[in-house]
C-alpha cells in the first residue's frame, strides 16, 4: 500500500514502455510485455499481407473467367493467403500477443516461467516468417495451405521446401509458447490464485497450449518429410515410388484439425472475459466453460478424419470420425449457452469490445453449426471442397477468432499502451466488420451448395451474381479492418491517457498501473476473491479507481 501511494505522487511512473528506448532494449528484452508488443506488430503485418492476398482473390472472382491473373498465379495467391493467415497470423494471434501480455499479469506473476525461451520463440517466429516470405517472393508456392501429396512432393514446381522450412521453424515458436504457458500456469500463480479462481482466458490458453505441444510437432515432422521427399526424391508419400498420399493427410490433419482449436480457444477465452466483465457479473457456469475448453482440446484430437471423408479412407473410419465430430461440437455449444445466460440480470454495457463479443457469438454460432453440416458424413460428400467449406471456416476463423481478437485488443488496449482509443470509430468499425463479413461469406454457403468448388480461378457464369456480392462484402470488410489499424495507431499519439482501471473491473490486470511496470506489480498480489467477483469482497478500491477515472 505504501508503495502505491509513493509512486502515485511521482509525475511519470516507470513502466515497461519507458524504462529503455534503445532498439536493443526491445530486441534483447526478456519482458513478456515487450515481446507481446513485438508480436503484435509482426502479426499485424502478416495479417495485412494475408488481407492483400484476400483482396486479390476476391477481385479475381468478380468475373467467371480467370482474367485478372493467370490460373497459376491465382493458385499461388490463395496458397499464400492461407499460409500467411493460418500459420503466421491466426495461430499466434491471440496467444502470442494478448496471451503473452496478459497471462502473467492475470495470475499475478512477474513474467512467464522462461522469459528467454519466450524471446527465442519470437525469434523463431521471425525467422520462419522471413524464410516463408522469401519463398513467396522468390516465386511462391502453389500447393494450397494443406500441402497435399503427391502434388507437393513431386509435381509442384514452386518453392515448397523453403516455405515448408519456414512453417517448420514457426511451428517450434508455437510449441515453445505453449510450453511456457503451461509451466507458467502451473507454477507461477500468485498466492491465493487457485485453479478455479483463474480467469477463463487463462484456462482457454492452458487448453490451447496442450494442443500446441501435442499437435504441432507432428505437423513439423510431416512437413520435414515432404521437404526431404522433394529434395531426395524418395519417400513415403508419393505412390509412384510405393508411398501413400493418404498417410500424409492423416499426419497433416492430426495437427491441423486440433490447430483450428488453437485458433478458436484463445478467442473463446477472450469472449468469456468480455461477456462477464461487460455484464458486470459472475460468468454463468464457470466450471463448465473451463472444462469445456479442456474437453475441446482433448476430443479435438480424435476427429481429424472428417477432412478426409472422400479421400479414400475406410468407410468405417469415416463413420467413427463423423461420430466423434458430433461429440466435439457439444462443448462449444455449452460455451455458447453459458455466455448467453451470463447476460441474464447483468448490467450490460456496449463498449466496442462488447460489440465484438456479441458479434462473435452470432458468427461463431453460424460457423459452428455449418461445421455440423460438414461433419455429417453423408452431407459432407456433397459439400467438401466447395465454397461451403470456405464459408464455414471463414465464419469460425474470421467471424470467430478475428472478432474475438479485435475485441480483446480493444479491451486491453488501454492496459497495454496506456492510451484510450476513439470509442466512436471503434463502434463504427465493429459495425462495418460485422456487416461486411456477412455480406462476404454468407453467399458462399449458397455457392457451395450449388456446387462451386474451392480453389477455382474460373467458375461457371451462372454463379457470378453471388460472387459479386461476396467481393462487395469483402471491400466493406476490408475498410472495417483497416480502420482499427488507423485509429488505434493514432490513439498512441492523440489518445487520452488511460487510468489503471478504465472499466472498473476486478481482474488482477486492472489492479496495476496502465501500462504496467516491468515487474507487473509493485508487490506480489494475494488473491482472496473469485474470478469475475463484482461484489464488495473483491478487494477493489472502487472509490480510488473512480477518482482516477474522472481525473484521466
Amino acid at each position: 500500500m505504501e508503495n502505491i501511494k509513493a509512486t502515485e505522487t511521482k509525475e511519470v511512473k516507470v513502466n515497461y514502455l519507458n524504462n529503455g528506448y534503445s532498439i536493443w532494449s526491445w530486441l534483447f528484452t526478456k519482458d513478456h510485455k515487450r515481446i507481446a508488443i513485438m508480436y503484435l506488430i509482426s502479426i499485424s503485418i502478416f495479417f495485412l499481407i494475408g488481407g492483400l492476398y484476400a483482396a486479390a482473390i476476391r477481385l479475381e472472382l468478380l468475373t467467371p473467367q480467370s482474367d485478372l491473373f493467370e490460373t497459376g498465379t491465382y493458385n499461388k495467391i490463395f496458397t499464400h493467403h492461407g499460409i500467411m493467415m493460418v500459420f503466421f497470423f491466426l495461430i499466434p494471434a491471440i496467444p502470442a500477443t494478448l496471451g503473452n501480455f496478459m497471462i502473467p499479469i492475470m495470475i499475478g506473476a512477474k513474467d512467464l516461467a522462461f522469459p528467454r525461451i519466450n524471446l527465442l520463440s519470437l525469434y523463431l517466429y521471425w525467422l520462419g516468417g522471413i524464410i516463408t516470405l522469401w519463398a513467396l517472393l522468390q516465386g511462391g508456392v502453389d500447393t494450397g495451405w494443406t500441402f497435399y501429396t503427391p502434388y507437393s512432393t513431386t509435381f509442384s514446381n514452386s518453392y515448397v521446401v523453403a516455405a515448408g522450412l519456414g512453417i517448420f521453424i514457426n511451428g517450434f515458436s508455437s510449441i515453445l509458447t505453449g510450453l511456457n504457458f503451461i509451466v507458467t500456469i502451473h507454477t507461477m500463480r500468485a498466492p491465493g490464485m487457485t485453479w478455479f479462481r483463474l480467469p477463463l482466458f487463462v484456462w482457454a490458453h492452458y487448453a490451447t497450449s496442450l494442443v500446441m505441444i501435442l499437435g504441432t510437432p507432428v505437423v513439423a515432422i510431416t512437413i520435414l518429410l515432404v521437404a526431404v521427399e522433394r529434395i531426395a526424391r524418395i519417400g513415403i508419400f508419393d505412390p509412384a515410388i510405393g508411398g501413400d498420399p493418404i498417410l500424409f493427410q492423416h499426419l497433416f490433419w492430426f495437427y491441423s484439425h486440433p490447430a483450428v482449436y488453437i485458433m478458436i480457444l484463445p478467442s473463446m477465452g477472450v469472449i468469456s472475459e468480455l461477456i462477464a466483465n461487460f455484464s458486470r457479473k459472475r460468468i454463468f457456469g464457470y466450471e463448465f466453460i473451463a472444462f469445456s475448453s479442456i474437453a475441446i482440446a482433448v476430443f479435438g484430437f480424435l476427429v481429424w478424419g472428417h477432412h478426409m471423408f472422400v479421400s479414400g479412407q475406410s468407410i468405417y473410419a469415416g463413420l467413427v470420425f463423423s461420430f466423434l465430430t458430433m461429440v466435439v461440437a457439444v462443448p462449444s455449444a455449452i460455451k455458447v449457452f453459458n455466455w448467453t445466460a451470463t447476460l441474464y440480470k447483468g448490467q450490460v454495457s456496449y463498449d466496442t469490445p462488447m460489440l465484438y463479443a456479441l458479434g462473435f457469438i452470432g458468427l461463431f454460432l453460424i460457423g459452428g453449426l455449418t461445421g455440423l453440416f460438414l461433419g455429417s458424413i453423408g452431407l459432407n460428400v456433397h459439400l467438401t471442397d466447395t465454397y461451403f467449406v470456405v464459408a464455414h471456416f471463414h465464419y469460425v476463423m474470421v467471424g470467430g477468432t478475428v472478432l474475438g481478437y479485435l475485441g480483446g485488443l480493444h479491451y486491453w488496449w488501454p492496459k497495454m499502451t496506456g492510451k484510450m482509443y476513439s470509442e466512436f470509430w471503434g463502434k463504427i468499425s465493429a459495425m462495418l466488420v460485422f456487416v461486411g463479413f456477412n455480406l462476404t461469406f454468407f453467399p458462399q454457403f449458397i455457392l457451395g451448395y450449388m456446387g462451386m468448388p474451392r480453389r477455382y480461378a474460373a467458375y461457371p457464369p451462372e454463379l457470378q451474381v453471388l460472387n459479386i456480392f461476396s467481393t462487395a462484402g469483402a471491400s466493406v470488410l476490408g475498410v472495417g479492418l483497416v480502420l482499427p489499424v488507423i485509429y488505434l495507431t493514432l490513439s498512441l499519439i492523440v489518445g487520452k491517457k488511460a487510468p489503471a482501471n478504465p472499466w472498473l473491473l476486478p481482474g488482477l490486470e486492472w489492479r496495476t498501473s496502465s501500462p504496467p511496470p516491468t515487474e507487473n506489480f509493485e508487490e506480489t498480489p494475494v488473491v482472496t476473491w473469485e474470478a469475475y467477483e463484482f461484489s464488495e469482497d473483491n478487494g477493489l478500491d472502487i472509490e480510488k479507481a473512480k477518482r482516477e477515472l474522472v481525473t484521466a
Partner: protein
Amino acid sequence: MADTHKHHHQPGLQHQFENMEQQQESATIGMWMFLVQEIMFFGGLFTAYLVFRSRYPMAFAAGSNHLDAFLGGLNTLVLIVSSFTMALTVYYAQKSNRTMQVVMILLTMFFGSVFLGVKVIEYSDKYNHGLIPVTGWNKKTPVSAEKAELGSFVGTKVSAEEATHGKESAHTGGDKTSHDGHHEKPYYNPTGDFQWNYGGEDLVMMAKQAGYLTEAEKIGYFDPITKEFDPNRFRDKVRIFYWIYFAMTGLHALHMVVGLIIMSWLLFKAIQGTFSADYYSPVEISGLYWHFVDIVWIFLFPLLYLLGRHFLHGGGH
C-alpha cells in the same frame, strides 16, 4: 520496490521466480513438456513405420536383415551404460560431489560418442552397399566388364540371360549358406542408386505359401499383368524401409549430438563447481533429456533391427 529484489542474493535464482523451489519445479515441468513434444515429433515417424510395416512386413523383414543387428545391439548397450552414468551424474550432483560428477559427465559423453561412432560405421556400410535410399548418394562403381556380366538384376537394365541367371541362383543358391539367407550379388552401381540386390523372392514365396502375405503385399510385390514376383516393386518397398530407417536413426543421432552439446556445457559448469545439493536442476533436466533419447533407441532397436529377423533364422517362416 526494493524488497522485490531481495531474492537475487540467492545464486542462480532468476528474477521472475519467488524462490528456488518454484524455479526448479518450473524447470522440471518444462522439460517434461518438452519431452512430450519430442514424443509426438518422433511419433510422426513411428506412425509412418507402423503404417508401412503393417502393410509390407516381408519387405521390412528383408530390409532389417541387412542392418547389422550386432552393432545395433551393441549400441543399445552403449546407450544404456551412458544412461546409467547419467543417472549417477545426477546422484553425485545431489551429493555435491564435484569430482565424481565430472567423471560421470565425461563417461556419459564418452559413451555417447561411441554410439555415434558406431552409427558412422553403420552408415558408411550402407553407403558401400548401396543401401542409402537416395539416388546418387551411394558409392558409385564404374561399369567394369566382368562385374557387368554378373550383373545385378535390380535397379539396372539387364539382359535376358542375366535375368535368368539371377533367378536360377535365387532358386538353387544355398539358402542356408549365406549368413542371413539372402543372395548377395556383386556390387555394381554406376549411378549410386539405391541398390537392393539381395533377392527377396524366396522370402516372399515362403510367406505366400504360409499364407502370411498381407493384402497390400499381394498387390504390392507382383506384376499386375504377369502376376509374377517383381523385384523392382519389392525393392520400392524395401526402399521405404530404408528411408524410415535413416529418418528415424538420423533424427535420433541428431538428438544425440544436441545431447553432447548440452553435456559439454554441463561439464563446463560442473568443473566450475556450480552444482550442489542446493542447485542441481540443470543436471537433472539434462538427464531427463538424455534418458529420453535413450528410450527412443530402446524402441528403435527392436523395431528396425530385429522384427522379422526370425523369418530367416527360424528356418520356417
